[in-house]
């Protein structure tokens, strides 16, 4: 994990007419590292990946992948990368084996390596023995692992995963990440995009992206700490409706939302433990049963780091 950077991105910018999809983004990914781009739909994640694969030309800025410039040496870049898209781009009316043979041909895998890599991919995907099954009849998890196998037949040094686990069941998702961690251990650099906040926890480092801008970068733990000039209190109380309405006026409270039978209350961390909160709620006829400090999630971090910007930008469009 301490290798030289295999992806270097500097001031990368992409404009579509008047719309800036990616706005001066810079980051580096070390060899063998799992780096995540985390952001909602439309934040520019896929545009970044497409530029790094040499499929889209940057409007300005530069990026290299394993030393090759993505704008000027796109052909070289493509030889060294694997790409798995959110749609898995497999042929549903081909068998699992035929899909692998097709992609092996595409990537120029030949000779003794061909059979060896195909056998490896089938084993990895757990499809050994089912290689004659039609791809369209495989479940989401199998398809996903087959797509992963197809993307790495040519042993790429860098693997791009664009929303790889959208809608896949959690069991398959866990298995998938196990495979990704294994590849990273073998030295493959992995760049993954996701809008699942909880999934980003699988990455070694993350860039939080919102509206084409990187708003934070670091390990998942560090990002959560960064965001925490707010802390989150779990407040079990009754009645919830009134509690929600009044708690936002309590001193030190930034925001509140309902989680099942409790409130999650974002408070100014400097003012913890906020001893006056129970009394404040009691004075508004809210009975407090329990207050507990809970760890903020990546989503809490994301909201606190992007916050109002979402709206100010939208208004300025």
């Amino acid at each position, binding site marked *: 994990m301490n290798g030289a950077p295999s992806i270097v991105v500097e001031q990368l910018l992409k404009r579509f007419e008047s719309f800036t999809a990616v706005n001066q983004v810079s980051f580096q990914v070390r060899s063998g590292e*799992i780096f995540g781009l985390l952001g909602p739909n439309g934040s520019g994640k896929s545009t970044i990946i497409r530029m790094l694969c040499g499929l889209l030309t940057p409007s300005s800025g530069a990026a290299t992948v394993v030393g090759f410039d993505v704008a000027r040496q796109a052909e070289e870049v493509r030889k060294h990368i694997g790409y798995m898209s959110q749609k898995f781009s497999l042929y549903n009316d081909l068998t699992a084996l035929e899909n692998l043979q097709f992609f092996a041909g595409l990537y120029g895998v030949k000779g003794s390596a061909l059979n060896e890599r195909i056998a490896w991919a089938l084993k990895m995907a757990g499809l050994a023995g089912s290689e004659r099954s039609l791809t369209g009849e495989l479940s989401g998890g199998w398809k996903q692992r087959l797509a992963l196998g197809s993307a790495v037949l040519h042993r790429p040094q860098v693997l791009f995963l664009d929303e790889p686990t959208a*809608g896949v*069941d959690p069991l398959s998702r866990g298995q998938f990440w196990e495979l990704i961690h294994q590849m990273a251990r073998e030295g493959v650099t992995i760049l993954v995009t996701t809008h699942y*906040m*909880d999934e980003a926890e699988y990455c*070694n480092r993350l860039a939080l992206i919102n509206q084409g801008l990187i708003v934070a970068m670091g390990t998942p*733990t560090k990002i959560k700490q960064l965001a925490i000039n707010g802390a989150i209190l779990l407040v079990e109380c009754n009645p919830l409706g009134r509690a929600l309405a009044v708690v936002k006026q309590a001193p030190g409270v930034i925001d509140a939302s309902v*989680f099942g039978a409790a409130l999650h209350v974002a408070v100014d961390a400097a003012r913890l433990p906020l001893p006056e909160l129970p009394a404040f709620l009691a004075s508004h006829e809210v009975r407090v049963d329990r207050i507990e400090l809970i760890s903020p999630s990546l*989503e809490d971090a994301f909201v606190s780091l992007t916050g109002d910007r979402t709206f100010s930008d939208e208004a300025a469009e």
Partner: protein
Amino acid sequence: MSDEIVAVSGLTKRFASVVAVDDLNFNARKGEILGLVGPDGAGKTTTLRILAGILPADMGSVLVAGQDVLREPEAVKSRISYMPQQFGLYEDLTVTENIRFYADIFEVSRTVRQQREAQLLEASGMSRFRDRLAGQLSGGMKRKLGIACALIHTPQLLLLDEPTTGVDPVSRRELWSILYSLVFEGVTVLVSTAYLDEAERCQRLLLMHQGRSLFFGTPTDLKSTLCGGVLSIGSSNPQALQMATAGEQGILRATAMGDGLHIVVDDPDRRLVELRERFDRTGIPFGDIRRIPASVEDVFVYVISQQAQEAREQ
């Protein structure tokens, strides 16, 4: 029970050889958010469509406010509002015009509409976009407009199919806060989601997998079905740590995360001490080690593995 708005029993639906929904049983009370939670293919959309009266079922019964939806789907349509994943907004109409259009369909009077429209736009932070064309709204804004349209009449039951999928976190939170304000007014909300973490926002949930129910109850009760607990161990090399703990006694599952390891153990307090001692003794570097709350995903995986094991034993 008088405050029971939805009562579903033995609900089953097949599409050719696929059992999309298999013997579901659940209910929802007045003023409650019930989540249908599960990955793609769990049967969430099929269930909501049947409840909305637009898809017949093969077996079972569905009562909404005491009326039989399967026999008389038209009888309940005035009481419910259904927002599918692809909600029909007119992209070349403005925000206000879309709302007005749905108000006319639901025969909402002008005074009620004006009051409700202002309220809904305010709650969703869209007041200043009322004259924007729907086609020019972001994904999150479109969902919020969809909900505003679905709520322009006051339904007893609101059915929402994955309203938060792909929506940015800020809009996602606003959506949930709108749903809770409705619930506090007495509306019953059935909302489906493939985000397992959103289960924690529901008052009760039906956890679904491949058409079947894995669990029905509160998020707290769901988590108590997990025997044992979860430990988090910080590490700059989670994979090495994972290998070092493989096969240890009491460890049910170990997952390498980006900057640490999550392990599901049978007895968290005891294993925490044991692991710390072992890492110290063997010189394996590790960071912060502590107990963390189980996530819904932890429980989901646990329940599915248990069921698979039971199936093998039978």
